[in-house]
Structures are given as C-alpha cells and as structure tokens.
C-alpha cells in the first residue's frame, strides 16, 4: 500500500510538470504578459523593457518557469498586476468554489446514484426508459444553456430564487448553480451506476447473498451497490477537477466570485500570475483527487489489492 502510494506520487510529478509547463508556455509565449499593464494601448518600448526586467521576463522561458515553480513551493504565488497577492485572491475565491463543488458533488452522489440504482434494477421498465431519455437530453444541452434557462425560469419568471449570487455566496444561494454545474455529470453518474448495477446483479456474489436469505435492501446496498460503485467513484474523482475548472461557465452565469470568475478575469486582463497560479492549484487538486479515488477501490472491492 505504502509503496503503491509512493509510486503513484512519483508518477504524478511528470504530469504536474507537464501540465503546468503547458499552461505557463501558453500564457507567456502565446500572449504578451505585460500587455495588460498598459491598459488598452500598447506599452511604450522603454516602459515595456523596464517592466520586463522588473518581472524577470527578459530571462529565458525555462529559467522563468523554474523560478516560478521554486516560488510556488515556498508558498509564493506572486503578485497580480493590481498589486494584490495571488494567494490573497485564492483565499477569497477557493472557499466559494469549494462550496459550489461540494453542492454539485452532493447532487451527483445522492440523485445520480439513487436514479442509477432504480433504473439498473428495473432495466427495460418505463422508469428506466424515461430516466435514460432525460439523461440523454441533459447531456446534450450545454451547461451554459441549462444555466441560462433555469436562471430565466426560476430566478426571473417565477422568482423562486435570486437570479444572481451575493458576494458571500452562502450555501443556500449556491443550490441552483450547484445543480447546473452538476447537471451533465449527474446524468453520467446515473448512466454509469445503471450499467454497473445491471452488469453486477447477475454475478455470483449477489446470487450467494440472495441464496443466504439476506433481505433485498441488504443485498442491494451492501453487496451489489458497493462493488458497482467503482466506475462511479472513478468518474467522480476525475470530475472534482473538472467541476472546479468547469465552474468558469456556471460562475459567470450566476455572477459568483469564485475560482472561475478570477480565472476568467485573469485571462481577459492578461493577468498571467493569477492564471498560472490558479491553474497550478487546480491541476494539483485534480491529481490528488485521482489518487484518492484509486485508493478507494480497495475499500469498495475487497478483491483489489495494491502491490
């Protein structure tokens, strides 16, 4: 187990370096990092040269990347061009997005798995067909369309909720945005659980459990669902990173000042420090979530052992 974790951690290093380097190159080479400093106009050459020296932009890109990563590992994510520390921006943005992601995950797990179990056990029944059809529609409608339509209906037409979220972003205001953020993944969790349950319900250990005379709910929850959750957990683990990154669209629709908002502003204003810093953290979250998921397999399926 310990060796497995160590190996996985070592494997994460090249992926982490590759992903951050890719973003670093995209931001620094493709764009002009100091263009955002002079407003809409171009910087005059002397100022530009001085700014480049000040931010170390005259050094080769490799050197810049190493310096940046060195700083990151000492907890210094640099300063955004408006003088705010990037870590300060993170400390206000991440709690909001973490709340939003938690709500989305809760929707995925509770509604998605429940629907998946119901449809998986009753394959071919009208309930199954109906839910499948709905998931197909949900998958097909892009998140920004779902978000705008729900905002229009619930927020503007019927007035059930506030159409936009206040800057504190408490849990109750994030329920609808969380549902919108979760919608596509929710449909996938439903479909995955359904397939997995339908496949495993014919397996030997389920037949044994039934033959032992266990009550139906115990067979389903303890024996069938537990092993069937493996592909679902895999998906959810990968989904955590996606939800936090995908929050760009949802946060824009509902005017939530979280990670997506900061990233969007950072990209529009060409605020390279903000963008690279936030993406670095997101990539880390994604990698760690995937590792945790892989370790969860053994908990769910006792047949799996790590060597």
């Amino acid at each position, binding site marked *: 187990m310990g060796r497995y974790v160590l190996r996985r951690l070592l494997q994460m290093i090249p992926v982490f370096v590759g992903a951050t380097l890719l973003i670093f190159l995209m931001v620094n080479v493709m764009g002009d990092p100091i263009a955002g400093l002079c407003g809409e106009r171009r910087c005059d050459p002397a100022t530009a040269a001085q700014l480049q020296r000040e931010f170390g932009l005259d050094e080769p890109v490799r050197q810049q990347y190493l310096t940046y990563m060195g700083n990151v590992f000492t907890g210094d994510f640099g300063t955004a061009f408006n003088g705010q520390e990037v870590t300060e921006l993170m400390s206000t943005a991440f709690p909001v997005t973490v709340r939003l992601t938690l709500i989305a995950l809760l929707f995925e797990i509770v509604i998605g798995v429940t629907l998946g179990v119901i449809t998986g056990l009753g394959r071919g029944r009208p309930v199954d067909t109906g839910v499948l059809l709905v998931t197909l529609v949900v998958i097909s409608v892009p998140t920004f369309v779902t978000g705008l339509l729900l905002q229009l209906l619930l927020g503007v037409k019927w007035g059930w909720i506030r159409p936009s979220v206040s800057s504190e972003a408490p849990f109750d205001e994030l329920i609808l945005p969380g549902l919108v953020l979760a919608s*596509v993944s929710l449909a996938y969790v439903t479909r995955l659980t359904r397939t997995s349950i339908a496949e495993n319900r014919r397996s030997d250990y389920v037949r044994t459990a039934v033959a032992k005379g266990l009550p139906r709910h115990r067979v389903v929850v303890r024996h069938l669902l537990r092993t069937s959750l493996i592909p679902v957990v895999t998906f959810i683990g990968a989904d955590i990173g996606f939800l936090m990154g995908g929050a760009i669209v949802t946060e824009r629709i509902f005017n939530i000042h979280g990670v997506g908002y900061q990233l969007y502003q950072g990209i529009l204003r060409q605020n390279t420090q903000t963008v690279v810093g936030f993406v670095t953290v997101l990539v880390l979250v994604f990698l760690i979530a995937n590792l945790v998921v892989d370790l969860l397999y053994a908990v769910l399926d006792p047949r799996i052992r790590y060597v």
Partner: protein
Amino acid sequence: MSDRHYEPEPALAATAVGGTVDLGVEEAETPKKRPAGPDGPAPQDRPRSLWSDAWRDLRRNPVFIVSGLVILFLVLIALWPSAIASRSPLDCDLSKAQEGSQAGHPFGFDGQGCDVYTRTVHGARTSVAVGVLATLGVAVLGSVLGALAGFFGGIWDSILSRITDVFFAIPVVLGGLVLLSVITSDTVWPVIGFIVLLGWPQLSRIARGAVITAKQHDYVQAARALGASNSRLMLRHIAPNAVAPVIVVATISLGTYIALEATLSYLGVGLKPPSVSWGIDISAASPYVRNAPHALLWPSGALAITVLAFIMLGDAVRDALDPKLR
C-alpha cells in the same frame, strides 16, 4: 481477472475530465468488449461481416433514423442556408430590436434588430463545420498516434501515455480560454485547431486500447507467422477490427465539440462577430433575456437538438457495433 477488468475503466473515465462537453466519451466506454471481427457468433446461412450486421441493425433502429434525418437536414442547411432563409444574417434593423415574432420573421428579432430565424439557420454552418472538421482532425491524429503506440508498445507507448495524462489534467474550457484569448482571427480555424489539440489524447487512448485488443487475436499472430510486414498487419488485419470503437467515440465527440464551440463562443473566445454562431447569439441574448427571451431560446434549442442528434447517432452506432448487446 475480475479486478483487471476494472483496470481500463479509470483510464477511460479520466477522459471525462476534458470538460463539460467532452463528457460524451464516457458513454462510449461501455463497449468494453470490442467487436472482434469475423468470429461468426450466430449460426447464420451466410457469413455476415460486422459492418453489414451493424447496418442491418441500424436501418431498423428508430433512434438512428430520427437522428440521421435531423443530421441530414442540418448538413443541408449548413451547405445551402439561403434555401430556407434568404435574407442575410448581418442585415439588421436596430429599430426592430427585441421585437417578438411577426409576419416574415417567425422567431422575432434580437437585441441588434437582426432576424433570429435567419441567424439561427445560418448558425448551423459554423457548428457543423467546426464539429465535422474538428472530429476529422481528432480522429486522424488520435487514431494514428494511438494505434502506433498500441502496436509498437514500449517506450513510445509510455511517452504517449504520459502526454495524454498531461492533457487530461488541464480542464478544456480553461485551456480554451487561455489559448484562444490571445488569437485574433475571425475564421473557424483557431477553434478547430484548439479542439484537435486538446481532443486527440482521448481518442488516442481508445485507439490504443482497441489495437492492443486486436493485436492479440490468433489471426494476427497467424499473419505475422506467415511473414506479413508490420504495415500489412496494421492495415489489413488490425485496423478493420479496431476501427469500430474509434468511430463510435468520434461520432459522440462530434456532438460534444459542437457544444464546446458554442461554450467557447459564449465565453467570448471562440468565434467572434461578425461570424454567425449559436454560441455568439446566446451570449448576446443573455443580458436582455427578461425582455426578449425568444432571442435566447431559438439558438439554444437549435444547439441542443444538434448536439442531441449526434449523441443519439453515436449511441445507435455503438449499440449496432457492440455484439455484447445483441
């Protein structure tokens, strides 16, 4: 064996990280057991290939017929939009801004006084073009690289796997914002290039897996023993039996790429005006949605139906090509 069976799942499920729209791939993960070529499962009078079997199934599948007809219609109006909408999508009259439907303008007008019907019809072209061209690019690049890695294995396989890991770790929408925000072009090419750049790793994984499965079959070993060259093995024996999952995933991806283009255009980095795109129109209509919801609803509906049609087509093709479900 049973825990090995789970092994490919995490790798494939990771494709979902791509982004909202890339999730379509998750669906295609079900055809685990690849149609393994002419193994003649059913006692039939004459041998039928996987493809003729699949085609026979598809013709009877109502889902395939409906989605096929929708797609045919979309392709036709993408090629000749003026056949059903003769006005120009850029012909706008500000005095009619946000007006509802009226004679000759069934969908009403948007915030700039443009005819929503004309713009919705003309928007099909960019969506279909981006979807088809990006899918072609992704399919060619992804399947060639994935097939080579799966066929030769070894160091190239490891390198490719690490590269795909790197791409999966970057959220697609985020990558799109970063990369496309610095490109100023009013053509569809940057968007297509970007989708190909971030989309190929996912398809290369599918192709790699399919090639590895096909490579182990006896007929490939037999051909190798008879002295067939690598290229002959690859093209004559492996490719025909590994192409089915690639086609399925590519079809489903086509729908998701269309949604991705709209999402990027909605965020202001995909296509830019004066291009006509559903994403641009939805983005432009969202601020005044209280006064003119129709300007939001029509392009949204068109977008949703298009994506749905391609995903349903992919679903139907998968069902037809997956012998496990028969």
